[in-house]
């Protein structure tokens, strides 16, 4: 069964690609409408260096935005758990930031940081998008500590810091890791959307490659860039799933394989 899990989707993918290739050739579909997989591969190899450089630019910003979002969201969640007053004061504004579509504040951010500083604008927008799921989940996680365990910690004279590090943070870990998986994908989306919004400037990421290829009707190059983006998204998801598994599989129900 386990081999089928990999063979079936791969076989389906190969069949669809083959049908696509044959149909495009048979019906003579113009390449500016739908290029055949062979054309896409040709575009990919022809523009390999440029595509890789663009992907690298984008992924670097994605990684930095993700790390900044995770760090700042966890820090703010800890601050919330230490002070209800801070939480009451700031949480509504975090929600406002979350529900305002990032694309609508993009022009403002770009004006503020300037077109000659476009990478910072991309970074800020991806950060905003990735920030909230981590904040919301970690805040709930820190508050979910078993009430009896909290009593036990108090009975043994635990300090506030011990309750945080030895009880609340471990309790919040599964919530945090779940949120990281969501935010990893979101930071990629955030950077691409921000690149579309920027549209020009000195941006050289894969989002700009897509915009440029579409303006020039290089549909095959667009597909190649899209495939690269999908692969990057899948890689981010698997990396974070692996992180979750490696931290939780010893003890958390979500990561434990059932024996029966």
């Amino acid at each position, binding site marked *: 069964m386990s081999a089928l899990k990999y063979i079936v989707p791969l076989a389906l993918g190969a069949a669809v690609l083959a049908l696509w290739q044959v149909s495009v050739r048979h019906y003579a579909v113009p390449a500016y409408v739908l290029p055949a997989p062979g054309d896409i591969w040709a575009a990919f190899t022809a523009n390999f260096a440029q595509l890789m450089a663009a992907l690298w630019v984008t992924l670097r910003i994605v990684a930095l935005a993700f790390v900044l979002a995770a760090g700042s969201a966890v820090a703010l969640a800890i601050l919330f758990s230490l002070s209800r007053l801070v939480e009451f004061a700031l949480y509504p504004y975090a929600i406002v930031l979350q529900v305002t579509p990032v694309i609508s504040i993009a022009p403002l951010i770009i004006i503020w940081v300037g077109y000659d500083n476009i990478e910072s604008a991309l970074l800020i927008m991806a950060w905003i998008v990735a920030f909230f799921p981590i904040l919301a989940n970690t805040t709930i996680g820190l508050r979910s500590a078993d009430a009896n365990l909290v*009593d036990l910690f108090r009975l043994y004279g635990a300090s506030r810091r011990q309750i945080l590090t*030895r009880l609340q943070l*471990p309790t919040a870990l599964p919530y945090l890791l779940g949120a990281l998986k969501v935010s990893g994908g979101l930071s990629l989306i955030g950077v691409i959307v921000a690149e579309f919004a920027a549209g020009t400037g000195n941006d050289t990421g894969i989002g700009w490659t897509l915009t440029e290829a579409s303006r020039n009707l290089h549909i095959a190059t667009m597909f190649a860039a899209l495939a690269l983006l999908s692969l990057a998204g899948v890689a981010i998801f698997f990396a974070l799933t692996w992180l979750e598994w490696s931290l939780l599989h010893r003890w*958390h*129900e979500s990561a434990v394989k059932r024996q029966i």
Partner: protein
Amino acid sequence: MNLLTLTHLSKTFDNGLNALADVSLEEKDGEFLSLVGPSGCGKSTVLRIVAGLLKPDSGRIEFPHGRPEIGFVFQEPTLMPWTSALGNARLPLTLKHVPRAEADARAAKALARVGLAGFEKAYPRELSGGMKMRVSIARALAAEPKLLLMDEPFAALDEFTRQALNDDLIKLAREDAITVIFVTHSVYESAYLSDRVAVMTPRPGHIAADIALAQPAARDAAYRFTPQFADGAARISAALASAMAQAA
């Protein structure tokens, strides 16, 4: 010699729930005292007040010889799932900044005493319900308590496991000269374990009867079929019935 004196304790919770009304109780050093009463009669509230986790509205709680080291065992094992049996048993020592090597040694010894030698590295999810409760008891023992508070600890366990744990508890409490307050709603469990049984009325709880039991030092399965055991259980039962009738 009294380890603990409770005088006229009353407690009403913020939501208006009147849990305790005028509870007075004293317990001698080394005594095994059970609090028996219907669900919701405030037994757990008494334990939480004794542990210092809850303040009474009125009344006093006194330890004539100073506050003893207190251990607490809940109805649920209440273990930390992210650490091993050893990590859980070590908790009180870790929180008190006992050096790691010494804490490990004492926690391992506590696990061995509850019959879990060899399970130090097991995670809670790998243990049965009875074994988890044993880890919970080992955690309480690791801090070397003088007073052990137990809140219906065996209520969720099957009959065999419960009886085995009853026997182990009697032995451990005697070996370490631990004073125990044991909350239960089982007449038979209290009749088996206790030197004294305090019967509580339904909410708002107060002490309706205080029954001393003359217990043999060694108890085993056969003791549950002796007239002495039956007599103790009958007296607790009658006191409980009368406490319920008063309330009704």
